[in-house]
């Protein structure tokens, strides 16, 4: 790791003041940032340890009207196992528990989960070009090792995927990211939080310099609680990033007709991928394979492989159907 300064502010204002220094970055769980610093991928000149901000309530999980408020500093494990999350947002609980390992989930925070970087091997290897790490140097992944990488929303400069499982569920559940800066607060709809690479693949999110995530707000989603599923396909049974992941939730009428549907995909794009039009295709139809297949086709419209990841096209199609089938089938309580 490069040498860096270290401070532990007592409150959000002090943290924001410290983060105004050039090259300063916040650290919470540290599970991704320290890994990247060891590789020389990220080289902050100063770390601002925001863990002490938990004393101000930033690690709380609490009811917020009919919804839930997830503190930015709440650990992933505490979020996944929280009784209210399990009861009202089993999809979120399942998605978090599908990611990383128990040790990492004990360390990683909700805010940090949103800000983790891609695991593209070229991004991690400072000996290779990478437009995300070093803008303008090129993208060897297009014609190289791209088994893990994107099939949707790519650009000429980058085919990286966002690695989070939690974020796929948050996208499906219409979460909002609340941030604070020296000049005030702002709420960012989850759909707008992560961005597509376009011609600036070095920019992962719309979080601005000087902004700190305070909490994530979840709207009431109890209509989906009985029928949701997180299907994650990966190279080993546990503790691996998704090749394709699908968060699916259904609101079913007594006669089995779909009243509302949510489907979001991970492992396929630079951000969690959701196509609301595809969900509309399901509304008013019975929960059948043909309805699911039509939705899958719509979601994956325009998908394109890059060689090693061509298999993701049929895999994603089948995973969408499997996730919707699982959601329709069972009352899921993780």
């Amino acid at each position, binding site marked *: 790791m490069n*040498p860096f300064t270290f401070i532990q502010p007592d409150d959000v204002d002090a943290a924001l003041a410290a983060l105004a220094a050039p090259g300063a970055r916040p650290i919470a769980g540290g599970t991704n940032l320290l890994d990247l610093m060891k590789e020389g991928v990220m080289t902050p000149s100063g770390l601002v340890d925001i863990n002490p901000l938990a004393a101000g309530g930033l690690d709380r999980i609490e009811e917020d009207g009919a919804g839930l408020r997830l503190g930015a500093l709440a650990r992933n*494990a505490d979020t996944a*196992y929280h009784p209210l999350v399990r009861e009202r947002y089993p999809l979120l609980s399942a998605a978090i528990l599908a990611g990383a*390992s*128990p*040790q*990492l989930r*004990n360390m990683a925070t909700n805010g940090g989960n949103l800000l983790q970087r891609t695991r593209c091997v070229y991004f991690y290897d400072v000996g290779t070009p990478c437009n995300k790490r070093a803008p303008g140097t090129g993208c060897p992944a297009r014609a190289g090792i791209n088994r893990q990488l994107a099939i949707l929303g790519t650009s000429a400069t980058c085919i990286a995927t966002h690695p989070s499982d939690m974020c796929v569920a948050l996208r499906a559940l219409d979460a909002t990211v609340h941030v604070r800066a020296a000049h005030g607060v702002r709420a960012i709809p989850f759909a707008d939080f992560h961005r597509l690479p376009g011609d600036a693949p070095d920019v992962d999110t719309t979080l601005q310099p000087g902004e700190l995530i305070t909490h994530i707000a979840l709207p009431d989603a109890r209509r989906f609680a009985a029928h949701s599923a997180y299907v994650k396909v990966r190279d080993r049974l546990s503790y691996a990033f998704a090749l394709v992941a699908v968060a699916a939730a259904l609101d079913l009428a007594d006669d089995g007709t779909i009243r509302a549907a949510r489907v979001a995909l991970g492992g396929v794009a630079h951000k969690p991928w959701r196509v609301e039009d595809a969900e509309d295709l399901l509304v008013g139809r019975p929960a059948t394979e043909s309805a699911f297949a039509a939705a899958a086709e719509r979601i994956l419209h325009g998908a394109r492989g890059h060689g090693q990841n061509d298999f993701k096209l049929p895999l994603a199609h089948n995973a969408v159907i499997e996730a919707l089938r699982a959601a329709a089938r069972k009352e899921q309580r993780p």
Partner: protein
Amino acid sequence: MDVHRQYPIRLRINGQERAFEVESWVTLLDLLRERAGLTGTKKGCDHGQCGACTVLLDGRRINACLTLAVMQDGHELTTIEGLADGADLHPLQQAFIDHDAFQCGYCTPGQICSAAGLIAEGQARTAADVRELMSGNICRCGAYPQIARAVGAVLGIAP
């Protein structure tokens, strides 16, 4: 601010108050091995992918390689050296012997600390749960069946 400055920190390690002066970039793992003289905690990958460095921080299992020592000032740590009660082995240590749950032994301190964390979390109900919730610990010798049986035995879960 001087990037090379030393930060004074205090940690309670295996029940003992310890004080250190460390640079900002010293990981908790390196502090344990290089400065505290506790080499039971192993460095495998140093990237949070293998679990060999698993310790209990305030009773919760974490990867010591992915946190900075300065971030843990004032906290309490339990390492493999702190699990036994004097000459009496921790039940997990005894179970690993009884079930032959290692070959080279390099991953074992991390496996046992991870299992102690798993038991404290109270989420494992079945043998499948044990395997899933031990997935953060890699064993290159492939002693997984024995490890899962040893942890299950302490939990009273049938294989």
